[in-house]
């Protein structure tokens, strides 16, 4: 099948790219941003999108940087999954994001696909998003009027829906350095071991105080199970201040399952996902505690 015709432009600077987006918006042209292309090319081939112009930002060098700035790491949106999986800075300070990136697709997809693309495409099954949520990531968006920064959970409106404006570009992902005592786990459940879309994925970070025998703090996010990514606050509440016991874990699992159903309603997949999400939360918490 042939892909639809469009104009292709490859700006070399951020300003140029945003200028092009603005021009497209003002003239009523449909523009699409191309980064790694692992989602865009599929949509083009299926004629799901028929843009007038494709703006290839892959040549804008400053968007592929990773920097530590004080108490934060800033990750450029063009950083690939392969880089996230291997860069020392990410592995040290955002290990759970590395783990999540390592489960994306295949080596070929990880070499092309970018963090920014994974976020902006806004698939409910995106693997990096639950990790970014529990890392309290913020997103920097740049438009003609300047930059705005918002928490990642405010970015999504629903499946494949975000608050990004037509003339805005995601320019950075900001992750505060996590407290050193936290232990994180990423679990991905898919139908096969590679090139697989998550049936469910889960990121969990917590600190269990072994002296006091209580969960000091817990952050949980389950992907592919709610319309937009959220923290599993009810399960977190069950755990915090309590001891690591079977009963507490079971209760946390139930709370997560209930929150998922409350947010997504009862769907055909719920019969499977409801019990599994609870059990996966238990497994993740257990694995995080085992890490020390």
């Amino acid at each position, binding site marked *: 099948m042939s892909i639809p015709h469009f104009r292709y432009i490859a700006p070399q600077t951020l300003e140029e790219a945003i200028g092009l987006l603005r021009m497209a918006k003002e003239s009523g042209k449909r523009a699409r941003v191309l980064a790694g292309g692992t989602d865009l090319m599929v949509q083009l081939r299926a004629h799901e999108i028929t843009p007038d112009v494709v703006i290839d930002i892959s040549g804008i060098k400053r968007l592929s940087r990773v920097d530590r700035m004080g108490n934060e790491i800033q990750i450029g949106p063009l950083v690939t999954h392969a880089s996230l999986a291997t860069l020392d800075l990410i592995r040290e300070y955002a290990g759970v994001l590395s783990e999540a990136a390592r489960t994306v697709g295949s080596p070929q997809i990880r070499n092309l696909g970018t963090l920014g693309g994974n976020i902006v495409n806004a698939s409910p099954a995106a693997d990096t998003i639950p990790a970014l949520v529990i890392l309290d990531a913020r997103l920097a968006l740049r438009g003609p009027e300047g930059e705005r920064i918002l928490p990642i959970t405010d970015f999504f409106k629903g499946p494949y829906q975000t608050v990004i404006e037509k003339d805005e570009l995601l320019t950075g992902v900001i992750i505060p350095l996590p407290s050193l005592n936290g232990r994180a786990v990423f679990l991905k459940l898919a139908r096969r071991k590679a090139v*697989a879309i998550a049936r469910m994925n889960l990121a969990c970070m917590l600190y269990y105080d072994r002296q006091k025998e209580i969960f000091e703090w817990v952050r949980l996010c389950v992907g592919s199970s709610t319309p937009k990514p959220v923290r599993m606050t009810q399960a977190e509440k069950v755990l915090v201040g309590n001891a690591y016991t079977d009963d507490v874990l079971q209760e946390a699992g139930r709370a997560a399952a209930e929150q998922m159903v409350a947010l997504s309603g009862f769907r055909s997949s719920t019969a499977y996902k409801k019990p599994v999400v609870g059990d996966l939360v238990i497994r993740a918490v257990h694995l995080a505690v085992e890490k020390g």
Partner: protein
Amino acid sequence: MKNRVVGERVARIGIRDKVTGHARYAADLEIKNALVLKVFRSPVAHGRVKKVMTEKAAALEGVAGVFTAADIPGENLYGIINRDQTVLASEKVRFVGDPVALVAAETEEIAEAALKAIEAEITPLPALFDPADAMAPDAPAIHEKGNILFTRKVARGDIEKGFADSDLIIEETYETRMLEHAYLEPEAGVAYRDETGCVVLLVTTQNPHADHAQLVPILNVAPDRLRVIQTETGGGFGGKLDISVQPFLALAAYLLKRPVRMVYSREESFMASAKRHPLKIRMKTGASREGKLLAMESEITADTGAYGSYGIAVATRSAVHATGPYNVPNVSVISRAVYTNNNWCGAMRGFGVPQIAIAHESQMDKLAQRLGLDPITFRLKNAFENGSVTPTGQRLEASVGIRETLKKIRPYYQTFRKEIEANPSRRYDGVRHGVGVASMWYGIGNTGHPNPSSAQMEVDRDGVVTLYTGAADIGQGSDTVLVQIAAETLGLPYERIRLVRADTTLTTDAGATSASRQTYISGRAVQEAALEIKRILTEKAAGLLKVPANMVACEDGVFFPQFREFQKIPFEEVARAGLKKGEKIRGEGVFNPETTSLDPETGQGTPYSTYAYASQVSLVAVDEVTGQVTVKRTVSAHDVGKAVNPANVEGQIFSGVAMGIGMGLFEQFYPNKTKSFDTYLIPTAMDMPEITPIIIEVPEPTGPFGAKGVGEPALIPTAPAILNAVHDATGRWVHQIPADLETIRELISEQEGG
């Protein structure tokens, strides 16, 4: 004398080109000024074609032709066993994707625009998607002759008495799914008319001669006005036995007198090509307290979809193999292939045997468990041996290796058991391990039908040896194996033999690359051709050496008298001796394994002249939280008669295990829903277990150097062994594939719930 080429891991012919990307598949062929072909397909599952309006499409600039059924010069009908399929629908469409009109245009985009401009008036008819509905007495007829394509019965002994004598009877219904072959290379080809006007097709195919035979009546031309040449083929698995792009290419090249090319997208390949028949199998098996099988009754229903294709073969093969490789004195099987308006189903690696093996191997484990026997001991109590009589009344005379395969996997079975016991599951791990065994038998070649192969060899005055075979190498390695057999027979180095293959003008019919038959049948034909050359050359060498012919040997391209090896004459010198310019030495071989047609009422007869056997053991991990089954280890023992190329045999075993994991755990094709690999999941390298292939060689006297076949057998025991291992891990039997996340989680929950 020791074999020098047969049994060696010689490098595959053409492998360097494939690995480096230089091999040219049909879609890689550049052909000047070629028109692009596209097909307009039915949007409805069942309907009457009232009118197909092509004028607007034909009027578009860059459209060279738009064709409908009315433009077909010959018969608008084809089908490999029963002819029921139209090239372009004339009266009816029977599934979503049935071809209605053909467009030839200068570019792909114009062709796509032309498809959009075609208007087809099709009156929808009631559509049937379940064989049970299609068999109902008042069901609308999908084909004129009714919805039951074929019924195969196999009856032996006294089934009632068999069950009456049984101490234990197990009855269950099993269901398998419609599957896609998922070959790497989608259907593709090019065609043109040569300077004589002959239509030449270069096409990916498993059987160029059958393509030719089917295309001649469609074009209504003399057989020599059409030539089919097989291009490098990227897998077939049975899916390239039926014609696909061939009639479109032939028709457009013939009518437009211009070169044409056609390449299916993955989506079109999924929509238009044959699928594996989903089977519903009720099976009842009885055994004595001592563990002897006494009776087996089965009713099998295969959904063949809109067209017959190989449906008859699947109904028959599943019936004659339904007992598994075991002595069962009383057997009653009825197997039907039924039309529906689903995608049509055809040949796919094993023709119904991978499906029926799930039933008979689950039954075996259920019986073994109830009898308190381990699965291998129980199978050994019942496995065939020389002199056993099959359910079709055939006495097995030789090459019955099933017991050897079971004995060879036994130590692995015991090791896996011990490993599991030594590593019990820890808290919150949620992983249970299990070990499963499965066996199979598989008749080599077509069922109860003659299926000859032929080959020619020639040697010229320079000693150049050429082998001509019609056998299509589709990636399984027949080129290499056939050359090995020829080289071994002649006493020549493997590299000395030139190969001409799979071209209907240059080679003769070798039959299909299917039914695991090329090594056994075409291999034997090649051996016969080589033996004829050898006889002629040996006599010439005897004359030159002045010794009796029975004293002459040839090794590594040198003739010599036995015990006087210093008196050497090079092969080419012997070949040249006495040959005039332009003369060649020729040898011809034909082999048609002995079969008889099966009795229509009882199925008695000799469906195949030989059978392959295998047993497999798999170690699996079942995640009780997610329901995910992971195959950790697989040991697969195959009696292949003789491994002409052990590396090839092992390759088949690895690929069979991969395909079986997909069949058992992941794959399900939903008609009209499954569009591509986006939702049709096949295993990746990451899903593969560690595989230990074991080759067992119980020679087949009629096979070349004792060889049988392994292509399909490699797949067959995999899914059943996995399902039996899942039972071992969870205590639950799986009666439907795929054993996916939801199925397994639910089975485990049911158990926990009580």
